[in-house]
Structure formats: structure tokens, C-alpha cells
């Protein structure tokens, strides 16, 4: 059935019956005229306009977020792979248990094999006894998996653009100077309320520059993740209910994960990954 789907554009338009028309993507980048096989290979680029809010919570404009996004039939799997790789690479793999051979003691046969009238025993440290070894316990292990760099970035940008498409993302004007006077968590919570964020629900802030006072103001809010491009990661994007960017962060995302960000970002990204690994 798939194969017949991948017919020439003219054929597919000729069979386009009133019964059911294929779902066109909500973004005009992929035209229906292209064969599905071609669509599958292409990476879509979603343009979503994100509302810009001022510090006081009024809408002052829109900013386009124009990110690469995986084709809809693989997007879910791409994000999943990105997440699994990210989570798995964070594992240190240092859990370690002692087997019966490694637990100290237990070398001597407790009593002779025969003539005691008791069950035969060869060691004090068998897994059956308290203080004995662990059967099939964890041993230090490398959990890391490889993921292609482009795929990893695509997972992140797909997750971001899906959030932007569902209006879970918003842009706020740079609010660093609002906290010049000193850190104040109460003010930060009030600002979140003005932006329509629930301080009890998880939210992710992506800023390119974080002033100390902003950091201190939101540090004690457990639901908030304050990220910079360096610490931007897929888990927090998926975990957070709302994503909040600054304008410069949106610019960064567009330049890094946008349609024509292929060449310019490569070197930078490598550098970033190393630092990220160190951070985590």
C-alpha cells in the first residue's frame, strides 16, 4: 500500500477522491505534490511565530522560530532516539557489587562434606546466606551509545518546533535589568504569573546570558530549568510544560537548528558537546 502511495504526483492527484485526502502538513514547506518517498527523506522546516511578551506580560509582537523538524513519520522515533541516547550517555556505570568470589572470606569449607548429618556446604559466602555474594549484580559498565551528531540535533530541533507549534513556547523580552536591584524570587514568580506560567508546573528558560541576580532569583524555584545554549538539552525540553526563550535565544536557535544552519554551526557544536558532557 505504501508503494502505491509513492506514485507520481499526477497519479496521486488523479486518485484524490472525495473520500479522504492525505493530511497536508500544517506548514507549507512540504507540498503534497512531492512523492511520499521524497517527503520521508526531507527534513521539514517549520515556521512558527512565537508571541513576544514584555516583562509586564503584554504581548509586544511575534518572533519566527524556524527550525528543522524530522518528517512526521519518523519524528517521534528521532526524538525518542535522541532522548534515549542523552539519558544513557549520562549514566556513569559505576554501580558495582561483589560476587561470591569477591566477598571477603569464604575460602574454607565450613565443615566436612560427609558424616556431619548436615547439608553439604562449601562456602560461608554463598549467595544464599546473609553477607554472601550477589548473583548477577551490577558491575561497572559503559552505557554510552553513539548517535549521529546531525540526528541528535534534529531530535532537539524537532522537539523544540513541536513545542512551538503547540503554543507551548513563548518569548520574553530580556529581563536581566529588571533584577538589577537585587535577586528577588518573589518578583520572578510574579513575572512568571504575568507571562501565564504556573510556578507549580515545569518550565524551561533558555537565555543566552544569565545575570547573577536572575540566576539567584529563580534558583529556588524547583520547577524551573534555567538553561543557556551550552546546557540546552533534549530532556529538559521534553520535560518542561512551557518553554521560555529570550529574543537572542530564538536567534541562536534559528541560527543553530534552522534550515540553513548546516555548515556554520558544526565546529561550535562539537565544542559545545564536550562541555555539555563535562557539565552533566
Amino acid at each position, binding site marked *: *500500500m*505504501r508503494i*502505491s*502511495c509513492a*506514485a507520481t504526483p499526477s497519479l*496521486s492527484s488523479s*486518485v*484524490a*477522491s*472525495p*473520500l*479522504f*485526502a*492525505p*493530511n*497536508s*502538513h*500544517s*506548514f507549507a514547506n512540504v507540498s503534497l505534490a512531492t512523492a*511520499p518517498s521524497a*517527503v*520521508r527523506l526531507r527534513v521539514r522546516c517549520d515556521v512558527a511565530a512565537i508571541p513576544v511578551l514584555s516583562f509586564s506580560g503584554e504581548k509586544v509582537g511575534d518572533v519566527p522560530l524556524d527550525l528543522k*523538524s524530522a518528517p*512526521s*513519520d*519518523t*519524528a*517521534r*522515533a528521532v*526524538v*525518542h*532516539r535522541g*532522548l534515549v541516547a542523552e539519558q544513557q550517555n549520562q549514566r556513569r556505570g559505576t554501580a558495582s557489587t561483589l560476587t561470591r568470589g569477591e566477598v571477603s572470606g569464604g575460602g574454607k569449607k565450613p565443615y566436612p562434606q560427609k558424616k556431619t548429618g548436615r547439608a553439604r556446604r562449601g562456602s560461608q559466602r554463598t549467595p544464599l546466606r546473609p553477607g554472601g555474594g550477589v548473583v548477577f549484580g551490577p558491575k561497572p559498565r559503559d552505557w554510552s551509545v553513539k548517535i549521529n551528531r546531525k540526528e541528535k540535533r534534529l531530535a532537539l530541533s*524537532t*522537539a523544540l518546533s*513541536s*513545542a512551538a*507549534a*503547540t*503554543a*507551548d513556547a513563548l518569548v520574553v523580552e530580556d529581563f536581566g535589568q529588571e533584577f538589577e536591584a537585587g535577586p528577588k524570587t518573589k518578583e520572578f514568580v510574579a513575572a512568571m504569573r504575568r507571562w501565564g506560567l504556573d510556578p507549580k508546573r515545569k518550565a524551561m528558560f533558555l537565555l543566552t546570558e544569565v545575570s547573577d541576580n536572575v540566576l539567584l532569583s529563580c534558583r529556588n524555584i524547583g520547577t524551573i530549568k534555567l538553561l543557556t545554549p551550552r546546557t540546552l538539552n533534549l*530532556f529538559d525540553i*521534553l*520535560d518542561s510544560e512551557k518553554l521560555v526563550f529570550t529574543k537572542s535565544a530564538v536567534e541562536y536557535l534559528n541560527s543553530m537548528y534552522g534550515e540553513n544552519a548546516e555548515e556554520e554551526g558544526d565546529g561550535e557544536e562539537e565544542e559545545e558537546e564536550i562541555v555539555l558532557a563535562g557539565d552533566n
Partner: protein
Amino acid sequence: MAALLNLSTTTPAAPHIRLPASPFMGNIKILWPSLPSLFASKSCLVLRRGPQRAMVVCSAATGAPDPEASAPLGRFRLNNLGPQPGSKRKNKRKGRGIAAGQGNSCGFGMRGQKSRSGPGVRKGFEGGQMPLYRRIPKLRGIAGGMHAGLPKFVPVNLKDIEDAGFEEGDEVSLESLKAKGLINPSGRERRLPLKILGDGALSVKVNVKARAFSAAAKEKLEAAGCTLTALPGRKKWVKPSVAKNLARAEEYFAKKRAAAAAGGGGSE
């Protein structure tokens, strides 16, 4: 049938999240809460055929439904991700009861060495009979050390040089032939010198530089008017002390020859 042909790879419900196949690992219902109402309004029939694909047949007589207007948008969260259908396979669960298929002997058959834990007999073992890998001589020739049969040159025939499209006055050497792609020495061959062989004929005048020429090639090349340069062979390495002695001897004999020549010239 037209409706089936018309199925796109996406479902009409969400632009991002595809209706998954059987190894589904998330609750996709939460993504489009208004799904039933959407279908009810368009009087659609949802069929699920087989484990792999959900088929949606709509009987609305209108044209393409506007997805932007009707489809609720899904967003990827931690709870609705999953691997690509068909990309993961569950492990065999051995020893979990006879009804489970791999229960009783866990695929190890009945009795004997191969049914025990551990690897069984080693590779190539033939039950004690002299195995194949020991029946056959390990090395060829005189214990594998016969250099006599190995090639000592990279051979190139005249007809190949002719076909390679060399211009008048070009240089034919190991490097230029490599550049033309005529030869591509690899491994041991990379250290071998060039030898020109005499198959075919050459019509262009080229400068040929090679370590060796076959007699036929030399004849033909000279007939064609090419210039031939026989490159010197690699010098045998000697110890520095020996090299010094050789140089001294060379110098001494050169002087002697010169003296003899001068003396001979003087006497005449």
C-alpha cells in the same frame, strides 16, 4: 480502493505524531483529546487492520479537510515518545515455562556436551579426527618464504599507455601512470618499480622513465622515437663504516685510474 491509495504516511490527527504501530509505548490519546469529535463530525470509520497500520477511511464528501483548522496539535513530551515501529525486537525469554516456547531446555536440545553451559567444542574441532585446518599445509612454497615467485615490477604494456591518452612529449613514469589511473599499486606493490612491457604499439612520442623495459618494448619505443630513461635501482643499504670504506676505495681507485691515464697519456 482510491481511499486506500490516498493514504498518506501521516494520520490526519496530528502533524507531528504519527499513529504508531504495535510496539507502542506511550499514551497517544492525550495528544488529541478532541479526536472522537473530529471523527464524529466527519462521519469517519476507523479500522485497525493487522498490527502494523491504522487505516482511516473517511466518507466525508468534502475535499481536503483543513488540518490547520481541525487537527489538534501534538507536542512531544517524555511520555509520548517511542521507537520507530519495527526497529526493536523483544529478547527471547528463555526458561520461563514450557508454554512460553523456550522453556524446557532453552534451545539447548537434549543431553550431551552441547547441552551444558559453556561454549561446547572449539571451532574447527572434528570429534578428534585430524581437522581440516591441520590437514592442509599452513604455508605455500618452501614454508611460505619463497620470494622467487613474487613480482618485482609493476608492469605496464604499451597498448595501455597508448590507450591512456598521453600527448606528444609527455612523461610516462610511475607517477604519471598513477595520476592517469592506469595503475593503482597497493600493499607490497607500492614499493615496486615500473617495467614497460611490449604488448601492442605506441604511436605518440613520449618520454618514458622506468626501471626496466622488456626487450620488445625497448625495440618498439625506440622505433617510435621515444626517449627512454632507465631509472637507477635502489641502492643496497650498507653499514656506515662499510660505506665509508667503499667511498675511500672508490676515491683511491679513481685517483689511480686518473694517474694511470695521465701516465699513459704522458708516455705516448
